[in-house]
């Protein structure tokens, strides 16, 4: 089904697109980390007199409907989602890598059980799973992390399993084994170089999926709760004021689009 492994990497404009993607992601993260340092402020402080007011020195992006600095809320939101997404991708990647290698190396029952489990999870739309986990774990950041990890590991598992199975059967690995090298050496020398670029692509793609999911659930008000600054939540809060203060709505919209576009470009071309 989906395999990035066998897709030709060299495509016209491919390297260029990746650099643009990396630049966009770096820009978003730089704003998230350095933004509040450059202009100190509080994402939660309200001052109703300034509701929907335009930009000024203390709030370079103006104020939202409750008179909170959009600049600082945006920086906060751009820390929150990528952080959850990164944690989820790291967990899912480690889990998928371990289980995928295990399934491919052991074969037999181990492989069958793990593959069946992965197939079953694959049959569940990711958002559904995240929603259910969120309902069980009301503390939302942990819930998101757990739910997203549960969804994302399948992709890493499938990629790793396919790559490891092919590589383990290769003459190079057989030769290494005949020379008496252990499994750790085989992994480091033969498997990891094969898997690493794929992992990076799948990781960037997983980050995009996770950030999109968090924002989407925030937008339909089942994700993060107000007053937490979160991209989707900010959009839905500011939507009624799109005419009075278009700059307010535009800030989270363009930030979300930029971040997701960056991650999509970074992940490179791939289906679904």
């Amino acid at each position, binding site marked *: *089904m989906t395999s990035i492994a066998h897709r030709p990497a060299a495509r016209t404009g491919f390297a260029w697109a990746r650099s643009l993607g990396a630049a966009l992601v770096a820009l978003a993260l730089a704003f998230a980390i350095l933004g509040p340092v450059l202009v100190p402020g509080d994402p939660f402080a309200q001052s109703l007199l300034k509701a929907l007011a335009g930009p000024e020195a203390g709030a370079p992006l103006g104020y939202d409907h409750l008179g909170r600095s959009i600049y600082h809320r945006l920086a906060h939101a751009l820390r929150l989602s990528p952080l959850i997404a990164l944690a989820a991708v790291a967990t899912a990647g480690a889990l998928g890598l371990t289980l995928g290698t295990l399934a491919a190396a052991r074969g037999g029952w181990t492989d069958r059980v793990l593959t069946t489990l992965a*197939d079953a999870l694959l*049959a*569940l739309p990711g*958002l559904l799973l995240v*929603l259910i986990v969120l309902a069980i774990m009301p503390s939302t950041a942990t819930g998101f992390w757990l739910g997203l990890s549960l969804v994302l590991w399948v992709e890493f598992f499938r990629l790793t399993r396919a790559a490891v199975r092919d590589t383990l059967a290769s003459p190079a690995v057989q030769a290494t084994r005949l020379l008496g090298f252990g499994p750790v050496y085989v992994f480091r020398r033969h498997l990891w170089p094969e898997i690493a670029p794929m992992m990076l692509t799948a990781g960037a793609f997983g980050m995009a999926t996770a950030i999109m999911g968090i924002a989407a659930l925030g937008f339909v008000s089942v994700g993060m709760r107000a007053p937490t600054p979160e991209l989707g939540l900010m959009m839905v809060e500011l939507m009624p004021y799109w005419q009075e203060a278009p700059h307010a709505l535009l800030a989270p919209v363009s930030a*979300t689009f930029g971040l997701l*576009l960056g991650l999509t*470009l970074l992940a490179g071309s791939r289906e679904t």
Partner: protein
Amino acid sequence: MKSLVSRIIQAGLVAVLIGTATFAMMRALPGDMAWRIASHRYGYDNVDAAAADAVREELALDGPALPALLRWLGDLARLDFGNSLVSGAPVMDEVVHQLGASLQLAVAALALSLLIGPPLGILAGLRPGGLLDRGLLVLSTGLRAVPQFLLALVLILLLSVGLGLLPAAGHGAARHFILPTVTLALGLAAVNARIARDAMARIAAMPFWRFAEWKGLSRRQVLLRHGLRNVAVPLVTYLGLQFVTLVEGVVIVESVFGWPGIGHALVHAIFARDVPMVQATALVLGLGFVLVNAGVDAVTRTLDPRGLA
């Protein structure tokens, strides 16, 4: 045959996973579950401690988790979803009703995406590297980076709030279909078009394609006789995968546009902690995916009997 068996196993596992997750949800909910269920069964005025205890006994809400879980899964296997904790109506009836509305939307979106995506992709793939190909690449990459709710937001602001052309929400008349369908279809078409384009470019570079041209068939004949079937195979395979995107899209898009379908119901049920509703809708969505994939397998095999895809 083998694939049928594995699909059945997959379906069973999906049911067990959702069943277990919703069971955990039931146990994790705040408040006394027995009182809540009893009050829905017997009416708020008639409920007393004895009734609650009877419910607690029956559903083993206090007891060890494992037997209760098995009983819960047993109910699930008999498709006994019980009554909604919110409306009190049988969950089954509500889900069947909502499924209809969702299917209308999903089918319309899928059809529209197939009208937009593959034709553009095939045209681009016939001339790789051309202007249309490059334009399509930029457009589809951009579209894929736009979350569906954001697309919905833009469409609502432009077409219904800004120009007042279309209703932002609602269900019933034909014009209510337009915005949600377009939102879903654009996202699907962005992927469709890429797959059709890649398949077309690959096929157009193959020897049999050149042979067909060389023996004097017109471009049109080559495409119709040798191209379309080959393009269709990866397209149909990915349609199955896209169903996941479609279901997720339905959950979000329905909520945004107030479409009375299963996605909308799911979000509301999660919000209201209406566990039987969550269980039923999640199960319908999960099993629907397995069913669609089985169908996709069958269609792919008919398109390409060589047993490759």
